[in-house]
């Protein structure tokens, strides 16, 4: 889908380049962005138009090649061409991390992996399955690439959209998400401590709930650290440690079972404590579904915790390799927008770049000219 907005065209093109670059390449993207804007302004005689932006983009060339040149050290790995090594390894790691997260969650709930996967004739079936899947993936990629060959430089190919999921999966925590962690951590921590809530707990959960409260407050501290410092090794390590602690703690909590013995019920004159468990037992209704719900909640939280531990560990090793220390002012997940922010538009400050209309010859002049 083509746009008349030169900045949007540049953003779309850089999104394509980003797919092929290693994770810690935001500086490279910003440098290329400045290059494209200045080149487009030069071509447009001081004004950037969609036409001049397209010409600057075309001069820069194929996003795959640009990323490969910029990253510099890409090497072919097995059958994977050098340009595809970064996105393919990111997607592979994401799939492995999801599998590991689910397997940990399932193990926690007591399912055996063999029951779940039902693999037979092991180990011969595994290499055969891998080879077959690689052939199928190769075929799919070939067909997708054929369908994508006529797309303009500013439009992501289908394959890049799939690879783009890898970039999204490793995006740093957004600043507002971090603030959300602070608010939610404090909110739920305080709620769980209110005496009127504490009396609802089962005996087993009542002996443990303060640990959950401490964990939630530590989650708020983590959010505050990310809000202040963005993504850096200290914050990632803190997040990974919290993840590991939660996985260990969840093993205990899942055995505690459904945490609420009572719920509040209104009996006309006022609120009374209604014994949930006794009601189900005396009326011969199995209480099991509540324990299942609790187990499912634990499963989801463990999957998220494992995912965070894996991603944080990977990012720490990536940052250490690039010579970073423990603490620095890191990035947040929000992508840098090239357009004028909303508050400036409200105040009447306009884009410094002029929009343009497309002509039949494919190039544009500014509307103001």
């Amino acid at each position, binding site marked *: 889908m083509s746009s008349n907005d030169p900045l949007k065209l540049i953003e779309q093109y850089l999104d394509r380049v980003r797919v092929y670059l290693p994770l810690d390449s935001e500086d490279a993207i910003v*440098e290329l962005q*400045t290059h494209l804007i200045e080149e487009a302004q030069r071509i447009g005689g001081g004004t950037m138009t969609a036409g001049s932006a397209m010409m600057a983009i075309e001069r820069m060339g194929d996003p795959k*090649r640009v990323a490969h*040149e*910029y990253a510099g050290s890409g090497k072919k790995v097995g059958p994977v061409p050098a340009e595809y090594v970064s996105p393919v390894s990111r997607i592979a790691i994401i799939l492995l991390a999801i599998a590991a997260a689910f397997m940990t969650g399932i193990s926690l709930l007591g399912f055996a992996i063999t029951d779940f996967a039902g693999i037979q004739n092991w180990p011969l079936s595994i290499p055969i399955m891998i080879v077959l899947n690689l052939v199928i993936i190769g075929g799919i990629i070939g067909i997708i690439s054929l369908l994508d060959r006529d797309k303009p430089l500013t439009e992501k190919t289908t394959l890049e959209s799939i690879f783009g999921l890898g970039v999204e999966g490793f995006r740093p925590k957004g600043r507002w998400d971090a603030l959300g962690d602070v608010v939610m951590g404090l909110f739920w921590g305080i709620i769980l401590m209110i005496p009127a809530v504490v009396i609802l707990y089962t005996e087993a959960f009542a002996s443990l709930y303060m640990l959950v409260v401490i964990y939630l407050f530590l989650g708020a501290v983590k959010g505050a650290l990310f809000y202040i410092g963005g993504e850096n090794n200290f914050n990632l390590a803190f997040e990974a440690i919290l993840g590991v602690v939660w996985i260990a703690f969840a093993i205990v909590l899942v055995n505690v079972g459904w945490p609420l013995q009572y719920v509040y019920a209104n009996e006309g004159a006022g609120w009374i404590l209604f014994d949930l468990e006794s009601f189900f037992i005396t009326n011969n209704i199995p209480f099991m579904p509540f324990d299942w719900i609790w187990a499912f909640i634990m499963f989801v939280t463990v999957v998220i915790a494992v995912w965070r531990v894996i991603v944080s560990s990977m990012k720490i090793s990536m940052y250490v390799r690039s010579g970073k220390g423990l603490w620095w002012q890191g990035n947040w997940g929000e992508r840098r927008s090239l357009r004028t922010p909303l508050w400036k538009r409200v105040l009447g400050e306009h884009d410094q770049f002029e929009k343009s209309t497309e002509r039949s010859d494919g190039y544009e002049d500014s509307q103001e000219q």
Partner: protein
Amino acid sequence: MSMSKKTQDELDRWSKEVKRGAVTLAILALLSKKKAYGYEAVKLLDEKMSFLALEQGTVYPLLRRLEKRELLKSEWDYEDPTKPKKYYTVTEDGIAALGAMTQTWSKLSREMRDILSEVEK
């Protein structure tokens, strides 16, 4: 006089080799005079070193490599938030390397000139 294909191929191959050696020296020399950001460096090199015919695909990776080798250092300028600029300057190690390279290049040029003047006679 038009060149044969063989001569053209040899010239291309030789030019590539000469450029490979010259480009690091050219970048260090330009940046030792004044700091420049990526786009500025590409344009400066294009303007002053037409023989090298450098494009951004060559200049940016080279700037990054020289920075990694600590011959250059960089600093971001966010004055214009839509166009943040990464300014490159030569480090002390870079200056030392530039001095040594310049000496070698001058010696090479002098000796080449002597040899070539004999060929031209």
